[in-house]
């Protein structure tokens, strides 16, 4: 057999690594800004840099830019070596520059208010298409490596990469299906309950397949490398891989407990989350126990310190997750900062520390110079660890405090904290501690960036790219292998079945897809097909064109980042969101059939708005948007004075209405022919009402009128249904 050689492309790894650090620092600084906005509302600089627009920028940047680039660096470095083949340079370049262009587009469009208003899927349709194209490029590059591999079997890290690549593609495409109503405006093709289901199927599995599986793959490569120890258990890796991939996919509905989602779906979300506990811990065990016999190195080596803490946080988060998915716990935790604590334990602890551990291991190898300072790396580790602890503990305290305040009744049946604002101002000190924790974490990142920079400065003039002697490609050696197999079969017992799959990437990929799709189908198909899930309510009518545009403002300003629209079947909520001493109706599935996209929200920094219509007069809303602290002293809401200036683009209403009509929203003939007539009439009536209340003149063509029209509509239809039956 002739000897062949290969050179690994480390230039692409260096590029992704630099992008990881740069975007990571930016994304986290935006996060710190958001954190401070909640303590100091004046840091909202409207219209572009309010919390509602910056928070999606923060989440998208840290997920897709920081974790994304970090994952790509890990995958390109490790896959080339595990498969003994070189990534295709053109595809790598398209992947890298395409991904950075997408991130830049996100950084521009999100502050401009171009958003689909679905969490972690905010980017509008042209960018979504670009993401799909770049992701497919990446997939082709990866599968080409598998095809060109010179190592017969795939190592466990590669299984996790395969699961990541195929599942993220499926999630992204299905959750982002939308009808455009302009270059940067679209409406989800799903509505209400179904849209909520799709969104959290996506949202939860983005956590699973974007923030978990690739980093488990990363762990399986870089941890044994750094510890110079064999992995603890091969059979555990098989079991926890398959159980993780199959079970994770079901768990999404736990984000929607006690909402208008059908109970059976909610239950599936909970019980699969509980069953997910051990499959997740299988990864933790395989990580921590790999260090048996290497613990003395942990004290010396910052790389291992990062890995140990990362895996510990992974274990903690994957216990906390199933716990939060238990319905009765979720009743307390949902919509509070407890969720914020949970995701940051995972993001800062698990993902962040895995990335930085990897980076410190990689840079001497990539820059072919010794790490500038081991001591600085240790300082980074300690500062960031303290930062995470402050962050997570303060948000646990804030979440539990607020959750308990919301539900507290006194002996006479009066809410103990009926004013929502009291439950917000109580949290401000904890928001300061959180900001301090975040600032420490970022300080660590900046120290790390300096360390990397100094190491890079000491790099050689040209990087050595050694030629590695490798066996022939498996596919070229197929005939020979076949022959060998026949002989093997005669001489030896056959390979274990899973071992055989490890040698067949296509079979492995198909099995992974089957696992993911089957599990999804069990939940998705009934959600869409069973009519009982969404009983119709006769009095629920489509939004008027003006209200629809008002809803688009609500979406554009990112109101869903702080306000839910979902009254759960809890007495404290129906009483809190009731009117005139009468508890509200809790939210019903039939109310949301025209909500493309749904706006149930996931966090209540402000009160729920599902029953807002008719609670207050128009002038209150106007003054409150103009200067929230005027009407609500102590409020942390950003001010939106530009809504009183900006004009309603009446000529855009028709395309919005038409897009909704395409989705099956039943508009009458008059509106389909000319939506502006109805909109102008409604705006005129509302602005006249404002004047009689003592408000300003001339608001009939301003954005604020449309937003008020929308807010005054919320929850009104179902109240009529109730009135009608009485």
């Amino acid at each position, binding site marked *: 057999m002739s000897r062949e050689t290969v050179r690994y492309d480390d230039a692409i790894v260096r590029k992704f690594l630099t992008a990881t650090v740069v975007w990571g620092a930016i994304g986290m600084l935006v996060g710190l800004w958001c954190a401070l906005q909640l303590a100091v509302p004046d840091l909202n600089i409207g219209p572009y840099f309010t919390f509602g627009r910056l928070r999606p920028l923060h989440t998208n940047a840290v997920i897709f830019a920081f974790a994304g680039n970090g994952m790509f660096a890990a995958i390109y470095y490790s896959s080339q070596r595990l498969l003994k083949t070189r990534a295709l340079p053109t595809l790598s370049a398209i992947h890298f520059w395409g991904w950075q262009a997408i991130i830049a587009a996100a950084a521009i469009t999100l502050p401009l208010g171009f958003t689909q208003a679905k969490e972690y899927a905010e980017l509008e349709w042209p960018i979504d298409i670009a993401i799909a194209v770049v992701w497919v490029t990446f997939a082709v590059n990866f599968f080409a490596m598998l095809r060109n591999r010179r190592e017969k079997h795939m190592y466990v890290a590669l299984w996790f990469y395969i699961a990541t690549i195929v599942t993220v593609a499926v999630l992204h495409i299905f959750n982002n299906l939308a009808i455009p109503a302009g270059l940067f405006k679209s409406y989800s093709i799903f509505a209400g309950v179904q849209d909520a289901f799709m969104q959290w199927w996506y949202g939860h599995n983005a956590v699973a397949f974007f923030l978990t599986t690739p980093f488990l793959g990363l762990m399986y490569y870089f941890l044994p490398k750094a510890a110079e120890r064999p992995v603890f*258990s091969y059979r555990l890796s098989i079991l926890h891989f398959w159980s993780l991939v199959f079970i994770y996919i079901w768990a999404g509905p736990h984000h929607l407990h006690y909402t208008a989602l059908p109970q059976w779906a909610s239950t599936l979300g909970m019980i699969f989350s509980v069953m997910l506990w051990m499959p997740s811990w299988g990864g933790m065990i395989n990580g921590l126990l790999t260090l048996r016999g290497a613990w003395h190195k942990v004290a010396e080596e910052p790389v291992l310190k990062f890995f140990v803490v990362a895996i510990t946080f992974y274990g903690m988060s994957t216990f906390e997750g199933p716990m939060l998915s238990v319905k009765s716990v979720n009743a307390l935790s949902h919509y509070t900062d407890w969720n914020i604590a949970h995701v940051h334990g995972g993001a800062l602890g698990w993902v962040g520390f895995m990335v930085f551990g990897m980076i410190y291991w990689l840079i001497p190898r990539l820059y072919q110079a010794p790490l500038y300072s081991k001591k600085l790396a240790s300082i980074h580790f300690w500062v960031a660890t303290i930062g995470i602890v402050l962050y997570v503990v303060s948000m646990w305290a804030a979440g539990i405090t607020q959750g308990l305040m919301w539900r507290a009744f006194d002996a006479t049946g009066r809410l103990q904290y009926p004013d929502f604002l009291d439950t917000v101002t109580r949290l401000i000190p904890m928001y300061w501690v959180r900001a301090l924790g975040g600032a420490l974490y970022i300080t660590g990142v900046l120290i790390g960036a300096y360390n990397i920079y100094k190491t890079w400065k000491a790099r050689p003039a040209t990087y050595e790219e050694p030629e590695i002697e490798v066996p022939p490609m498996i596919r070229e050696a197929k005939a020979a292998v076949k022959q060998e197999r026949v002989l093997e079969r005669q001489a030896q017992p056959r390979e274990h079945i899973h071992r055989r799959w490890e040698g067949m990437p296509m079979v492995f990929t198909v099995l992974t897809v089957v696992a993911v799709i089957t599990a999804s189908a069990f939940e998705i198909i009934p959600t869409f097909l069973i009519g009982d899930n969404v009983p119709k309510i006769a009095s629920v009518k489509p939004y008027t064109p003006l209200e629809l545009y008002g809803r688009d403002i609500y979406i554009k300003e990112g109101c869903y980042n702080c306000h839910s629209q979902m009254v759960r079947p809890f007495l404290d909520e129906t009483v809190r969101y009731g009117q005139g001493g009468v508890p509200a109706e809790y939210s019903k599935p039939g109310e949301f059939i025209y909500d493309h996209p749904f706006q149930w929200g996931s966090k209540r920094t402000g009160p729920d708005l599902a029953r807002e219509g008719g609670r207050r007069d128009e002038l209150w809303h106007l003054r409150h948007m103009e200067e929230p602290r005027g009407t609500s002293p102590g409020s942390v809401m950003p001010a939106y004075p530009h809504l009183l200036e900006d004009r309603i683009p009446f000529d855009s209403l028709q395309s919005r209405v038409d897009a909704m009509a395409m989705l099956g929203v039943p508009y009458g003939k008059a509106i389909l022919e000319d939506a502006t007539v109805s909109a102008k009439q409604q705006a005129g009536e509302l602005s006249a009402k404002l004047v009689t209340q003592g408000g300003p003149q001339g608001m009939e063509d301003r954005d604020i009128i449309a937003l008020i029209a929308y807010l005054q509509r919320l929850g009104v239809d179902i109240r009529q249904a109730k009135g009608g039956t009485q």
Partner: protein
Amino acid sequence: MSVTHAAPESVPERSEPADGPPLMDHAYDGIREYDNPLPGWWSLIFIVTIVFAVIYGVYFHVGHWAKTPDDKYQAQLADWTEKKTIRDQAEAARVDEAGLARNALDVKLVEHGAKVFAQKCVGCHKEDGRGEIGPNLTDRFQMHGATRMDIYRTIRGGVPSTAMIAWGDQLAADELLDVAAFVITLRGKNVPGKAPQGQAVGDFGP
């Protein structure tokens, strides 16, 4: 940089060294794998969670043996409605026109009412009661009724479709009474502010 060379692969897959856990024969870029058995507690908890999941699903959705969230909610609502009726009756028994008139002369009560006003009411009525979103409380006009009791009732029950929510759900009985007393004292102070709304009612009666 050192990169390990490909180790030729061999079947059997696993070797069993005498002094350590079984080691898989393969190596990937130098990474080896033990084949330790699954920890017993791990397998046990995994099985327990699966059994729990099945039981939970059957209990709630096949047998329908548990109360639904709506069942629980309706029970809570009935209990709450009873409590609210008792509270409403108790508060109604404590208040009449003459009592409100007396309260409005009691400096301590009015001071307490002013504090509540400063917390809850100034957003719409402004700190001196001159009004902005809500009406001017210092003129001799009233939008809902004419008496002190009408003021109390408006505060307690609110005004539908306006920012004047039902403060009876928000404030304790004493707070309601005292803030009413404070508002009564504002009558006739005539602070320049929002133009008069409602009916001219003059000063309060005896």
